[in-house]
């Protein structure tokens, strides 16, 4: 177990190093950092001095080491476009994105798992066909088209929900939350639905196919033969065994939620990290781009690690196999 954890940690560290190297290369070699920071009328001496102060004349490995040191301490440099430290910018935007992604994930799980169980248990009922067709549309409809349709229906035609922004937010210490006001909740409904729709369809289809698979296995037949109630078989035996892949996929999907949040945030002008990243790409704001990359990679790596470890804890077979294999 410990060897496994250490090996996974080592892999995670390696991935982070590679991503940091990409971020560093972008910062150092895409465009000239000095030219980006100063105005047109800065003299050559001032530029040379700034270059020296920034340490851009040092050997490259030393610069990379310094880059990693700064990154670990949360010093990501200054945005070319806005002129503020990148960590402040991201800290401003992080709560909006996290609230949106978590709510979307929650929505996808709470609705997706029961629908998947239902369609798995009763594959031939007409309601199952309806759910499956809707989920296929949910997978095929581009996220931004869903968002626009929602805006058209609930925002413009019916006028029930606000179509952009977060509504009123309340500052609770470090966190700037929209979940404590009525307008905040009204504002988050459509974005969270839009963002969660794809994940919902995915989770539902996954649970369905896993349920179909598990219901065919011998131990479920045996449980039925023992005279257990349908309820006990379905939820105690079948559903429990579908959860391992569901946990894995759902965990990994949290990462893609953050990526898809870029689209949702654009459609609804949601002031999150995705919108910041998109503007950074349009204006070639390298520090923001590389920081976003590193931050998202970090979230990904941490989630991957947790999922792997959970897998190990949830599924006893894995432990037996590994120790039996003599590793």
């Amino acid at each position, binding site marked *: 177990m410990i060897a496994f954890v250490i090996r996974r940690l080592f892999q995670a560290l390696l*991935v982070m190093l590679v991503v940091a190297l990409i971020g560093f290369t972008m910062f150092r070699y*895409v465009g000239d950092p000095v030219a980006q920071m100063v105005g047109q009328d800065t003299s050559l001496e001032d530029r040379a001095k700034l270059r020296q102060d920034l340490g851009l004349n040092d050997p490259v490995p030393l610069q990379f080491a310094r880059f990693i040191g700064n990154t670990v301490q949360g010093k990501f440099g200054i945005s070319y476009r806005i002129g503020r430290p990148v960590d402040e910018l991201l800290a401003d935007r992080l709560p909006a994105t996290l609230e949106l992604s978590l709510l979307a994930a929650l929505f996808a799980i709470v609705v997706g798992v029961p629908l998947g169980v239902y369609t798995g248990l009763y594959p031939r009922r007409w309601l199952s066909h309806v759910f499956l067709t809707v989920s*296929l549309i949910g997978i095929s409809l581009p996220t931004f088209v869903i968002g626009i349709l929602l805006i058209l229906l609930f925002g413009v035609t019916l006028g029930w929900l606000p*179509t952009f922004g977060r509504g009123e937010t309340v500052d609770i210490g470090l966190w700037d939350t929209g979940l404590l006001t009525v307008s905040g909740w009204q504002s988050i409904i459509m974005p969270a639905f839009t963002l969660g729709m794809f994940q919902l369809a995915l989770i539902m289809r996954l649970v369905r196919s896993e349920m179909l698979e598990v219901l065919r296995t011998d131990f479920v037949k045996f449980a039925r033969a023992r005279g257990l109630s349908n309820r006990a078989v379905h939820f105690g035996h079948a559903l429990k065994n579908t959860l391992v892949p569901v946990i894995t996929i759902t965990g990994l999907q949290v990462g893609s939620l953050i990526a898809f949040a870029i689209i949702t945030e654009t459609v609804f002008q949601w002031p999150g990290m995705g919108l910041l*990243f998109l503007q950074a*790409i349009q204006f070639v704001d390298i520090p923001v*781009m590389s920081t976003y990359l590193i931050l*998202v990679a970090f979230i990904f790596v941490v989630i991957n690690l947790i999922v792997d470890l959970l897998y190990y804890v949830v599924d006893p077979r894995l432990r037996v196999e590994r120790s039996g294999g003599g590793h």
Partner: protein
Amino acid sequence: MGPVARIQDNFARFLDSDIWYSFRTSPVTVVATVLAIVMIVAAVIAPLITPQDPFDPASLDLLDAFTAPVWTEDGQWRFPLGTDDQGRDLYSAILYGSRISIGVGFASVILSIIIGVTLGLIAGYVGGTTDAVIMRIADVQISFPALLVALLLNGVLRSVLPGSSHETLALVVIIFSIGMSIWPQFARTVRGSTMVEKSKEYVQAARVIGLSSRAIMFRHVLPNVMGPVLVIGTINLAIAVLLEATLSFLGVGVPPTEPSLGTLIRIGQDFLFSGEWWIVIFPGVFLALLVLSVNLLGDWLRDALNPKLR
């Protein structure tokens, strides 16, 4: 047997095959295929079946701007689906736009197939450290969503290229970004089947008669591992079209002078609140139908060619 007879024979065999039977008996697939073919053909022959060239500013008249679709009160037969803010006929704009969307989709899938299949073949055939390095890169990349990789590549490429070339190179940049973001799937599949093929006798025989590794890989192994690639290719065509639309919608894709479906939706979103819903809805519906039908086709292809599911 003459060539005509051979074609007839092959055709008869095709009509008798399992695949054709499974296709025939799945109405959803038939509808999806017909829809996909109609849309792709319409995109290809767009100049012949549209009244206007929406990319040519001279053919646009600002006085026609914001005409509603023909079945509404202010509709005109000249513009069956209405016009946008510049007086562009939406029906023409959608067909011309889908030309770009589908073209970019095909080009990026072909690029990713070339990259992915080559790397997968090398990884599977050579093995060892080469294999480990290639597959590790693929693993890391596949754990990030393709959208994020494409966005990032796009941003980096645009900052490396000089500003003046952005418009002209926009299509190249977007094809490269999308192609580079979906290659790991092809590499993984091809590597798997290459490892199976590698141990077969024909490969050993080729090695015994002294063929070079390159000749064995590309002339003998390659044709035998291409089957699954076509299936993944179909599904990835839908993904690539969607990616292009998303990038264009986000404003980092093709330039607004030659709008793709995603660009049209981006432009149309601005007029949602002033009541001109048709500018955004029609391109959106067209895009959704296109992706849906290609997805359905890919799903069916995967099931039909997978003997395990029979």
